[in-house]
């Protein structure tokens, strides 16, 4: 059974001496996590005692001001960051995208990039072969698929990235704000695909500043502030 459970998860970034110059200004610290320092090191508490549970079919929207910890939380869920404290239990195959361009090589064609992206996500060659045409169709890139990736606009890149990362139907899909890079018709399509995924009893976690996107896609909303869970609630349904 697909599920996600976080128990009192905290994450602290340690800033090494050289990086401290770029730390946010403390006086107007309404955004961001808590900054602490000890000796020559500084720390940013990006997540502070976060607990929640998701079960099959849940679509969670992560909201909160810049620096609230949304991206950090997604990366902790994916396993990129090991939490400084607390426990995570995840059941299910996770796929995630934090940066549209990850794994995409500017000089390679879209087609070749689908292969590379697939390999990176651990697909077999047969799986890549099988999904190729579907990914191309979904991304609506047409003849551009055989041009180098560097000739794509951000929106086109987003289409390709989304098409590729959802093609194998991950059981748990994590997405950061980049999805809003696509145009309205793409977002509509993306929503439909996310509906399908969720209906197959998957879990989706989506961070976005776009309230209407969250309302359209998510069933629950989690508000983060300074790395703490401010509230978690059912998303008010869109009229209709």
């Amino acid at each position, binding site marked *: 059974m697909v599920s996600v459970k976080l128990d009192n998860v905290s994450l602290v970034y*340690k800033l090494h001496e050289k990086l401290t110059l770029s730390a946010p200004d403390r006086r107007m610290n309404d955004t961001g996590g808590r900054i602490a320092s000890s000796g020559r090191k500084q720390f940013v508490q990006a997540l502070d005692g976060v607990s929640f549970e998701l079960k099959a079919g849940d679509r969670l929207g992560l909201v909160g001001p810049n620096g609230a910890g949304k991206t950090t939380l997604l990366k902790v869920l994916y396993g*990129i960051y090991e939490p400084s404290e607390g426990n995570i239990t995840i059941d299910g195959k996770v796929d995630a995208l934090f940066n549209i361009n990850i794994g995409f090589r500017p000089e390679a064609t879209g087609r070749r990039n689908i292969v*590379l992206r697939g*390999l*990176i996500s651990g697909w077999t*060659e047969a799986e890549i072969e099988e999904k190729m045409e579907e990914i191309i169709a979904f991304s609506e890139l047409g003849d551009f698929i055989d041009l180098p990736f560097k000739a794509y606009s951000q929106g086109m890149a987003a289409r390709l990235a989304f098409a590729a990362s959802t093609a194998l139907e991950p059981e748990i899909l994590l997405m950061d704000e980049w999805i809003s890079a696509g145009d309205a018709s793409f977002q509509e399509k993306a929503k439909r695909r996310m509906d399908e995924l969720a209906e197959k009893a998957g879990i989706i976690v989506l961070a976005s500043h776009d309230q209407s996107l969250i309302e359209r896609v998510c069933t629950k909303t989690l508000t983060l502030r300074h790395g703490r869970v401010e509230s978690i609630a059912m998303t008010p349904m869109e009229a209709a």
Partner: protein
Amino acid sequence: MISTLNGALDDIFGAMKLRRVWIALAHEDIGDQHRRTTLGPLWLLVNYLAFVGTFVFVFQPAGKDAAGYSAYVAIGLMVWFYLMEVITVSVSLFKREQSFIEGTTLPLFVYVMRLTVQSAIRAGYAIAGCIVILLISGPALTTAWLWSLAGLLLILLATPAIIAIFAFTGAFFPDSEFIVGNLMRVGMFFTPVFWVNNGQDPIQTYAYNWNPFTSFLEVVRHPILSDEFPGHDFALTGAFTVAAWVIALMLLGRYRRQVVFMI
């Protein structure tokens, strides 16, 4: 200790399952480095031949067997350039892979193997040039060449461990990038790459005997040039390789989850 080792082996086995990833990426890397050039990766060969030619021309000891010296320099430079490139590029490995490390959960060893394959492919061009020089300049083709081949394979075996060690060093001590780069550039003069140790100059003899790179060079060079098996150099190189792997496994096991916070 056990859990450190388990962590390291998990990472390595995970990377081995993803071998298609690093093989594909390494090929893309080579292609990208030479895209839009007419000669493509053949520039690596040209570069190598130009260096060997220059060194032979400038440093050829007067009155000595010229052909022997060409072979000496050809093999010396081939191995030295390989090691120098591997080490200097490794120090910034994790920094260069930052977007992958911060955006995917690929095992770190994937990046180590990506660089290993890339370095091996690049070395292939120098090896081809070296073989041509050897055939022209004349050391007889004997079965001892097989020992040189074994020497090359031993160096290849040590490569991932060396890369991992320097990659972790670079991630945790950013200054090491510059220190290592400088040391390697100076190190060439303290390594018997193009000078021959004749036992008369005490500094030279000292550098010959105490430089760990000497044995790495000699396992490849000695069999071809002297038609005998350099047991001592093989033992030393083997010991360095084992030690490097032990250190690499410890680093990987203990610090792999910290790297993402360090780069």
